[in-house]
């Protein structure tokens, strides 16, 4: 192990003959040595930081372009298309929350506004059928204008206050679309709870996008352009002003930055991006309903931005991949139901593998396996109906699960009790220390598997939210700045 080269403490010409103690170059070199991490993780992170943004984009586009050639239509739709859609949507949120630091909880309303806008201009609803090259720019500008209005109304608000006002805005949008449905030109404007069906596919100058593959490539181009544009914007005068306002609005104002105008600008850019994504979404879905723009989507988008790292464009993409792929694995319509099982056990293993030293990790794993067989043997010894339940979506791991996890049949209420016991077990384990914790971890881990096989595997929507929660908690412990974000220091 060689000591990294230490920069010789420079003898500042203006510091000649002064005390060396506290020479700040020396302090900085010490910090640098401390931060440089070793091993594979360090290598990867240095390689990532060392490569220029252009190279990253080219690699991403090249890899993404291969997707349609080895995925079938359905896979491309749920893994490729939806990841890009989420990524584009999160890109806009990243402007508001990541760049400018404004906690905007009304973001999905802009997405809905864009989707409904496209549905009104290009569908059978009013029989307008505008071409996309006319309707999309109009809708993007319109959504940005709504962003302007919301920004103007809340320009003096920060933090919690801004969050509440924007959340109201989002809820008001959903409530309006769902319930109000005013008659405009002899037709209900929003279609109420039924939404607007029969939306046209995107149609540029007469060229219709009609296959998933075409939409995928279209979205890939739009996303790449948006990412490049925002990268440039972030490295410009405006981007720096946004960061300054995120750091300290008062100091930014005193440094000639018109804080209110920049906040509104961030809202407008975010809203415009969301509006653009909304139009594409409406075209892909060939219809819109208010339920598409609810708080669950807001949480998903925030999870993407936070997971990837606030303010990082590559992070947004990475977060979108992680979140969307795991959501799709958990989807009930998934063609490969065993994938969700691998995802679940993989995530558990990853978290448990954080235990150090390694001998202890191994002991916990072996202990959990053994504990399972013992419990299973005892349970089946008591009565066979404790273990003869049906394993849902068993796939390749069916026999292993059948012999290890207890899946009872005919015991109503077991699911509820199992869930409550799990929560209690997690609370107890987290309160224990040292060896006691290791000992408690073994039955807890086993019980996680029991709850998964009996409850969660059948309830994908709930599981997805729990998974996001666990993922974000684990990330908060391991990497508070997000996967690709830069660490921020609040108080020093």
């Amino acid at each position, binding site marked *: 192990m060689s000591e990294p080269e230490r*920069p010789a403490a*420079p003898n*500042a*010409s*203006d*510091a000649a003959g*002064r*005390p060396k103690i*506290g020479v*700040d170059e020396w*302090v*900085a070199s010490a*910090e640098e040595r401390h931060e440089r991490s070793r091993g594979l993780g360090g290598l990867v992170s240095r390689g990532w930081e060392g490569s220029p943004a252009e190279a990253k984009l080219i690699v991403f586009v090249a890899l993404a372009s291969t997707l349609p050639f080895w995925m079938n239509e359905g896979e491309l739709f749920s893994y490729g298309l939806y990841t890009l859609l989420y990524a584009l949507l999160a890109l806009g949120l990243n402007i508001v929350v990541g760049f400018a630091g404004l906690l905007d909880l009304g973001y999905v309303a802009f997405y809905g506004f864009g989707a409904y806008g496209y549905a009104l201009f290009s569908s059978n609803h009013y029989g307008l059928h505008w071409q996309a090259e006319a309707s999309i720019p109009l809708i993007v500008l319109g959504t940005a204008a709504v962003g302007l209005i919301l920004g103007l109304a809340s320009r003096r608000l920060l933090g919690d206050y801004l969050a509440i006002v924007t959340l109201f805005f989002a809820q008001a949008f959903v409530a309006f679309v769902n319930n109000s449905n005013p008659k405009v030109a002899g037709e209900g404007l929003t279609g109420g709870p039924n939404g607007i069906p029969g939306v046209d596919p995107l149609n540029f100058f007469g060229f219709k996008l009609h296959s998933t593959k075409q939409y995928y490539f279209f979205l890939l181009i739009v996303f790449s352009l948006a990412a490049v*544009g*925002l990268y*440039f*914007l972030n490295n*410009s*005068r*405006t*981007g*720096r*002003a946004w*960061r*300054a306002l995120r*750091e*300290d609005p*008062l*100091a*930014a*104002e*005193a*440094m*000639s*930055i*018109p*804080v209110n105008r920049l906040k509104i*600008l961030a809202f407008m*850019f975010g809203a415009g991006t969301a509006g653009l994504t909304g139009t594409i979404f409406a075209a892909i879905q060939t219809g819109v309903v208010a339920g598409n723009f609810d708080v669950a989507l807001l949480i998903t988008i925030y999870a993407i931005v936070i997971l990837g790292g606030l303010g990082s464009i590559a992070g947004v993409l990475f977060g979108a991949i992680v979140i969307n792929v795991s959501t799709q694995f958990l989807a009930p319509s998934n063609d490969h139901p065993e994938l969700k099982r691998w995802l679940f056990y993989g995530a558990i293993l990853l978290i448990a593998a954080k235990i150090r030293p390694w001998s202890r990790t191994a002991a916990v794993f072996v202990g959990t396996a053994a504990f399972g067989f013992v419990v299973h043997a005892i349970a089946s010894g008591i009565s066979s109906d404790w273990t003869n339940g049906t394993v849902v979506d068993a796939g390749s791991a069916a026999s292993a699960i059948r012999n290890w996890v207890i899946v009872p049949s005919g015991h109503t209420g077991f699911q509820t009790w199992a869930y409550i016991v799990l929560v209690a077990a997690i609370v107890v384990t987290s309160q224990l220390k040292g060896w006691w914790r290791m000992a408690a971890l073994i039955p807890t881990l086993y019980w996680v598997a029991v709850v998964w096989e009996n409850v969660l595997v059948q309830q994908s929507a709930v599981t997805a939210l729990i998974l996001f929660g666990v993922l974000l908690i684990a990330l908060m412990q391991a990497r508070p700045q997000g996967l690709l974000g*830069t660490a*921020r*220091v*609040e108080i*020093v």
Partner: protein
Amino acid sequence: MTALLELEGVSKSFGGLRVIDGLDLAVNEREIVSVIGPNGAGKTTLFNLITGLYHPDAGQIRLEGRNLVGLAPHRITKLGIARTFQTLRLFLNMTVKENVMAAQYGRTKAGPFRSIVRTPGMRREEREIHQRAEEKLAFFGKRLMGYRWDQPAYSLSYANRRRLEIARAMAAEPRILLLDEPAAGMNPVETHEITELIAKLRDDGGYTILVIEHDMHVVEGISDRVTALDHGVKIAEGSFEQVATDPKVIEAYLGIGAAEEEADADAAPA
């Protein structure tokens, strides 16, 4: 000759507390004026009033004859007044160079759309922003140069943060720099350095400087004129010697009777 910065009858109250009371002040072009006074005298409030963070209840603040009262802080900075903060309000998670670049917002034009498509004009402006930032940082010798440019501001030592605050204020290209306790928390060597730097800012940089400072060695070393405040009222004005020996100033710092005692003590040996 009209002064560059003029305050006329400026007053500010917070609730029932008169923090600044009918203050007149004039700062001439290329002059270094120090504001002294005990804690709570209203010095920082004075800065907040000049830079537009507070609005005065009465009076006028003029820069080259133009009234600043009611303008937003960023407008005032653009017109030519930049400040540092006593409590240090750097953009901590931005790099050293970015801090200085951000402060050039008011001096540059490229809008967001031009930045997205990177027009030639925008790129030229961006190069100038970099260049100007490097110039400002070079003002501090090697303290903020080289590898420091890309370090986040939070990694800087306290003294370097004070220097960066000044560099950032310089980047706004003001006519007048308002420095709020530039030597606070610095060791004697650094204090000496900052004293030289303030003189250099005026002589080489051409700035007019209004400075709040508690360290009387610094005040003595740099000031063309000194203004003493107490309870928001100007109690003395003039050269350092005049103000430092003014009985009202001594009283404000040391309490009632202190001036007489000192006079007695001076008289006794004679």
